[in-house]
């Protein structure tokens, strides 16, 4: 299984050979901190309880993959989700509309035990 990486400089979320255009911040306290995160594969959220901030504007899918920092930080509530409504997030990794659909399709087509469980955020 490939882990995910997020490059804060170029904004790409990478899964194996695939790169998904994304952004983190600049709202709230901005880009999520550098370091390793656990992806809560079994706690993914999907559906209408989520507002437009988490909506893929191309497919109308709404979803959120929770992230847990594996280091000490005062911030919390991070996740990976489509970058819905206005561009930018409060720190989550928001995948741009052009790429969110293909990421989500790949996620759902990947067996649960093969989904990435770790994200590394780097400069």
């Amino acid at each position, binding site marked *: 299984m490939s882990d995910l990486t997020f490059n804060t400089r170029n904004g790409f979320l990478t899964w194996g050979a695939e790169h998904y255009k994304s952004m983190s911040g600049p709202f709230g306290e901005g880009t999520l901190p550098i370091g390793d995160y656990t992806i809560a594969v079994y*706690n993914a*959220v999907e559906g209408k309880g989520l507002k437009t*901030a988490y909506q893929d504007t191309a497919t109308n899918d709404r979803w959120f993959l929770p992230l847990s920092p594996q280091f000490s930080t005062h911030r919390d*509530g991070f996740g990976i989700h489509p970058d819905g409504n206005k561009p930018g997030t409060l*720190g989550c990794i928001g995948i741009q509309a052009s790429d969110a659909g293909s990421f989500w399709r790949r996620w759902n087509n990947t067996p649960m035990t093969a989904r990435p469980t770790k994200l590394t955020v780097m400069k």
Partner: protein
Amino acid sequence: MINRPAILITLFLFGCSSESSLETRLLDLINTNDSHSHHNACIFLSELSFSERLLSDVKNRAPESICKHYLIAKKSNDKLAIDTFIKNFPMGQDLEHIWSIHRKSGYPIEFTPPYLTYLTKLAASSDLALDKLINVLNQTKAADSENITDSLAALYNKQENRITNALSKNNASINLTTFIKETAEHLKRTNNE
């Protein structure tokens, strides 16, 4: 994934010998010292239909907590109970603790802690709730609080003067004010909720 019908069916099957045994079990869990059990039991109990007896049991048995205030306010729709809920709504570290439990529990029933969803709903008509909500957003470090700012932005589009005045009155940060207004503008442009 959150699957509300499946959770409710599971709860029903768990207590299908009698609904009262399910309610009793949930009330017992609300009374534990385990904050996760307390939180989850509260959320599941709030999804059940309430009788007068159950409401009375909550008033008499549940520990003083946002859970108790939430259940009584939501199920009685009594103004005094609603005001009590709003006034006792947790802030700062206490609220962050609730967020943390909700996340670690896997966002049961809905993405946002239901106490916060309820407060947001009340903010549409209650100035007290609106003031509290803005203060919550001013303080929170939760990256997943966009569900709430989204709702407030939608409310801004319906009650611009009221929300603008409340943001100013509560010393909302420039960042928060800008975020809400720009989100509202985006929602208006795209005709979203």
